[in-house]
C-alpha cells in the first residue's frame, strides 16, 4: 500500500494579522519535561520523573495519536537490546499497514519482538477498551493513547496514565513509570 501519489490541488489558508481570537495563549516550552497524565483526566499532568514507584501492568504504544513511524522509532531507540519488565505486557500497534511495513524494513519490529513486546495489526483496540489489551480490576497501564477516563481501557477500577512513546517504552522496561534517562 502506497501513497496514492496523485497530485491534488489544495488551498493553503493563513490567519489574517487582524484575525479575532477569543483568547491567545503563549507558552515557553524550553524547560518542558516529559509529562504523564494520571487517572482519570488528560489534564491531570505531572512531570514523569516526579511519579515515583507507580507500578504498572501494561503499556500500550500506538493509536491515532502515537502510532506513527516516528513514534515507533523513538520506542525502538529505548527498547533496543533491552527486555520488557517481567510484570509488564507491552503492546505496540503501528497505526497503518504502511507504517507497519516501514517499521519492519527498518528493523523496529525485530527490536520490539526481541524486547518481548507484542506487535498488533493496526486497530484502535485497547484505546477504547475494545480489544487487544483490556485491563482487569486494579490493573494499571501507561498508554500513548489520548484519553484516560475511568474504565476507558477496561474495568472501571483499572487506571490509565497517558504519556509519550519515550516515557511508555522506558516504563515498560522498568515496570514502573520512568523516564528514558532511567534506562539509557
Amino acid at each position, binding site marked *: 500500500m502506497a501513497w*496514492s501519489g496523485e497530485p491534488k490541488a489544495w488551498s493553503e489558508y493563513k490567519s489574517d494579522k487582524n484575525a*479575532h481570537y477569543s483568547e491567545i495563549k503563549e507558552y515557553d516550552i524550553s524547560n518542558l519535561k516529559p*509529562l504523564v497524565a494520571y487517572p482519570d483526566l488528560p489534564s491531570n499532568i505531572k512531570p514523569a520523573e516526579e511519579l515515583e514507584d507507580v507500578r504498572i501492568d501494561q503499556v500500550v504504544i500506538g493509536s491515532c495519536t502515537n502510532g506513527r513511524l516516528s513514534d515507533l522509532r523513538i520506542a525502538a531507540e529505548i527498547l533496543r537490546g533491552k527486555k520488557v519488565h517481567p510484570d509488564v505486557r507491552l503492546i505496540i500497534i503501528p497505526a497503518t499497514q504502511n507504517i507497519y511495513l516501514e517499521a519492519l524494513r527498518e528493523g523496529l519490529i525485530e527490536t520490539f519482538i526481541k524486547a518481548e513486546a507484542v506487535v498488533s495489526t493496526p486497530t484502535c483496540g485497547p484505546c477504547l477498551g475494545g480489544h*487487544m489489551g483490556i485491563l482487569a480490576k486494579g490493573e494499571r497501564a501507561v498508554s500513548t493513547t489520548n484519553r484516560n477516563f475511568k474504565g476507558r481501557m477496561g474495568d472501571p477500577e483499572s487506571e490509565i496514565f497517558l504519556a509519550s*512513546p519515550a516515557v511508555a517504552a522506558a516504563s515498560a522496561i522498568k515496570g514502573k513509570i520512568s523516564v528514558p534517562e532511567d534506562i539509557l
Partner: protein
Amino acid sequence: MTISEKILLAHTNKKEIYPGEFILADIDLCLGNDITAPLAIKEFEKLPLSKRRIFDNKKIALIPDHFTPNKDIKSAEQCKLVREFAKKYEIENYFEVGRMGIEHALLPELGLVKPGDLVIGADSHTCTYGALGAFSTGVGSTDLAFAFASGKCWFKVPQTIKFIYYGRLNKWVSGKDIILYTIGDVGVSGCLYKSMEFSGEVIGVERRA
C-alpha cells in the same frame, strides 16, 4: 479572519461569516468507522427513495478500525453492514482489513485529506486533520447520514483560540508532552466548541497530529 473561518467560508455560498453563526457547508470528505458508520447507514436507509442517493462515492471514507479484525460476533455484524453498504453504493474509500489503518493516520497517509479541506467524521478524533491545515471535526452519526446524501453539514462557526509555543524542546520531549501540557493548562473542557490554532517553530505536522 482566522484559518478556520476562511475554510468554512470557502465551503459556503456566503460572502462573509462570523463566529456564532449557523451555516450549511459543503463537505470534502465524510468519515465513518465500524462503530459509527452502522448507525449512519441505518439512518441513511430510512431516507425516502428519491433522496436515498450518495452525494459522491469518492468523498466518503469508511474505515472499520475500532474492533477489527472482528473481536466478536457483534463487531463482525457491524463490519459486515459497513462492507455491504460500501459495495452497494460503490464507496471508493472503503478499507478492508489488510488495507485498513487507524482512520486518522490512514487518510493523511493516502493523501485523502489536504490543506483547506472541510472534513467531518463520526469520531471525536476527526479534528486530527487540523494538523494538515484542514478544518475537521467530529459529528454524530445522524449528521453523517445526512452528509452521505447531501454532501453538506451544518456548523456553528466556532471562535478560535490561538496557541503560540516558544523555545526548543529538550531531548525526549515530544508533541505528546506539548499537548498534555496545554490540556493541563486549559483543562479538558477548555476549548469546547472552539477551534484551536497552533503556531510556533516547534509545531511541525507530526507534532500537530
